[in-house]
């Protein structure tokens, strides 16, 4: 991170548009609680961070007092493979977590961009979900408990270490996707699954995004065993990629049948190569400080229309790429910073989203652009209630002030 001398005092730039005066490295949850209690009492703002992969998402903010570094709050707290559950500190990288689970033939079945940098607390806070959401769901579906510190410093836990639990209110799943606005997660409890024994992918070329998207819909309807199915446009070419995961025999058959349905198969992967391909795709379309990245969400029935419109708008423009997850109604577009940073193109895409009843989030953009186009799209329904919740968790508003709606 950069240290900037702004004249009066130095600030640390954690990410473009996110600056803090001092960095505090969390040692344990008591330390976090004391810091937040002090910050609330003294009305000093706090930006919690892990791998700093998603700090560039959101509104431009004023310089905050504290950057709370959670990477040191890492490691496994409890893991009993026979229970298919694990409790892990929030600063643990996803790669470290998957390695621990992998050694016991288990995994958390999710896509994560740059897993060696992304912390589990961070990915829970941002609510990211990739193409595996189609069959395996999201982290929200795997969360069975957590320990957290509210903005006012109250340290508490909710859930437990069992996979079925309706004791008390569902705070862990509620904190998923709350972007550090309500509390700092200090540890999470997850249910895990047996690791897939085999995987494979098939890539087929298509003439345009619309046809590719419809091919995905047809394939998903015919093959419920498909793990992921996306249509993407990259370097001027359009393709569909399909992934199957499970036992070897089933994977082979699913892919064979998918290949027949898709037609023009140009590439096939299996095992590690398959994993690398999909990780590459997820990384390519994830938040990135050097690009403009937009994520859109609509109903699967409407995604073909939205996809075509975005395609028409950006086709032929150098350096633009898009990926559609038709079964999820999800769409991602990346643009290079250069040439698009006046906001015109992004504004057009925001309008397109509105025209097609889609919501959007500007995941990456230069700070200046984030003042032109609202990064979180339209104000969500229930905003008053969200603000009431925010006041209960963070009465003075010290956590990520100004960065989000709440």
């Amino acid at each position, binding site marked *: 991170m950069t240290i900037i001398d702004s004249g009066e005092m130095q600030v640390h730039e954690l990410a473009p548009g996110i600056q803090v005066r001092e960095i505090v490295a969390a040692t344990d949850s008591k330390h976090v609680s004391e810091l937040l209690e002090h910050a609330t009492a003294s009305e000093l703002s706090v930006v919690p961070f892990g791998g700093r992969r998603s700090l560039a998402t959101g509104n431009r903010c004023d310089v905050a007092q504290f950057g709370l570094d959670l990477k040191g709050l890492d490691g496994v707290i409890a893991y009993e493979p026979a229970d298919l559950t694990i409790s892990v500190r929030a600063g643990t990288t996803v790669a470290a977590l998957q390695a621990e689970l992998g050694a016991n033939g288990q995994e958390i079945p999710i896509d994560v961009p740059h897993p060696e940098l992304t912390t589990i607390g961070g990915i829970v806070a941002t609510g990211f979900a990739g193409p595996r959401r189609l069959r395996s769901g999201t982290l929200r579906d795997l969360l069975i408990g957590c320990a957290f510190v509210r903005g006012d410093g109250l340290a508490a836990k909710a859930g437990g270490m069992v996979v079925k639990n309706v004791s008390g209110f569902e705070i862990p799943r509620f904190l998923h996707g709350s972007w550090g606005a309500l509390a700092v997660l200090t540890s999470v409890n997850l249910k895990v699954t047996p690791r897939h024994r085999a995987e494979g992918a098939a890539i087929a070329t298509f003439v345009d995004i619309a046809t590719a998207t419809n091919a995905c819909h047809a394939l998903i309807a015919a093959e419920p065993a498909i793990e992921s199915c996306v249509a993407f446009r990259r370097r001027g070419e359009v393709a569909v990629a399909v992934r199957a995961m499970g036992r070897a025999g089933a994977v082979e*058959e699913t892919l064979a049948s998918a290949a027949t349905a898709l037609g023009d198969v140009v590439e096939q992967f299996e095992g590690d190569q398959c994993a690398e391909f999909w990780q590459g795709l997820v990384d390519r379309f994830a938040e990135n400080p050097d690009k403009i990245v937009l994520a859109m969400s609509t109903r699967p029935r409407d995604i073909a229309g939205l996809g075509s419109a975005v395609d028409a708008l950006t086709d032929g423009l150098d350096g633009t790429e898009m990926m559609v997850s038709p079964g999820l109604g999800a769409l991602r577009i990346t643009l290079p910073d250069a040439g698009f940073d006046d906001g015109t193109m992004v504004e057009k895409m925001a309008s397109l989203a509105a025209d097609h009843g889609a919501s959007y989030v500007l995941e990456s953009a230069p700070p200046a652009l984030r003042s032109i186009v609202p990064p979180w799209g339209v104000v969500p329904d229930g905003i008053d209630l969200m603000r009431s*919740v925010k006041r209960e968790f963070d009465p003075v508003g010290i956590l990520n002030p100004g960065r989000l709606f709440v």
Partner: protein
Amino acid sequence: MDRLRLLDELERIVGHGGVRHRPVDLMVYEYDGSVDGAVDTAAPTAVVLPRSTEQVASIVRLAKRAGLPVVARGAGTGLSGGAVAQSGGIIVSLTRMDRVLEVNTVDRTALVEPGVINLELSDGVKGEGLFFAPDPSSQKACTIGGNVAENSGGPHCLKYGVTTNHILGLEVVLPDGEVIWTQVARDGYGGLDLTAAMVGSEGMFGIVTKALVKLTPMPAATTVMLAAFGSLDQASHAVTSIIAAGNLPASLEMMDNLTIQAVEPAYHAGYPMDAAGVLLIESDGHPTEVAESVEEIDALCRLAGATSMRRADTIGERDLLWKGRKMALAAMGRLAPNYYLHDTVVPRSRLPETIDAVESISRAHKLKIANVFHAGDGNLHPLMLFDRRIPGDVERVLEASHDLIHACVEFGGTLSGEHGIGTEKRGYMTLIFTEDDLRAMAELKRAFDPEQRFNPNKVIPTGYMCGEVKQLHIQAMRQQHGIVPV
């Protein structure tokens, strides 16, 4: 506001046929499925049966003006007292809002009103090759709104998850009468996941007037197996080895001999009457995957000491094997006039110890306990059998319940896997949560319901909501000394 005026206003909203107020008509609403004695019954001031979101919103605004509690109710099959109006007030019955508004096979969603019956939803979409995965045992009667309130489970949640994993959005009437749509956290959405807060909130955060639910594609192949064992210990070790080998079946249920004694003569599903326990295992998915998995599970069961194995592939055969499980509670009447169905969860690896503990408790309190488990999840359903006409029976059951709950918490478990806390387990919350934990929950609730009128006196222990921490200390001490708080 006086009662007559209230009734008048309610009739203005829903019409004359939509309000119940005569004592004889209110009696059936004093109860839900919970055990009388473990949960108090209580009469509401009135019951109202709306047909639309607008009517629900008007009722809620009226209740706000009148300063009255509001208790939402579906089919009233809940087991923890969630639909009982402990503090009086207006019961809003959602049973007349029972339409499936839309089914979309591309989205794989259904938009439903809260009064839609769980099984009827699945039956209605099976023609499209879809079903609604959460399948609690009460699914022939329970409603989607109730499933949302309790975050209901069922035998298939081992693979498919619980209700919260299948709700994509909710239309909610908040305690101040505002109507909002809640969303789930996902790419391209920038708000809080209010849906996550609503599911499992036991009617305390708002009234659901529509639910956008996820529908699941029916698997290409399904096989059900029945494995019989000479001891419950062997059966639970079979469960452990099945999962350790990397299988996650759709369902992994266990029943003990006492349960078999009840169900087999009633339904003739083919459960060996001399087995100490049986495992009912359902594998589903891609046909090749299922075939391989079934062979593996068969071998593992035999290795664990299974005395017999049966397999069912056709829907008729599978339904018959399942009948023994799904109708287990209904069959209990053959063994005793009353039962208290418990709902505790322990980590899977502690299942053998927990089964032993249940047996000790049964002996210590001289109570017959039939055991039905979602073994794959570690979710036990011990059924304590008794006869409330016999003096002392209810007290013995309550004491045994106290011991059971304490034992499960000691093994690293929790108070409830499916049934909810309601009034039934409210007094035990301090066993697993600290004051700070409870405060965080109470203050989340306060954001939704600052006047504390939605289903009051549920979930969060007595005295806590007023910040009377001292009462909480006293309560925790009572628990340590073995007095059952109610």
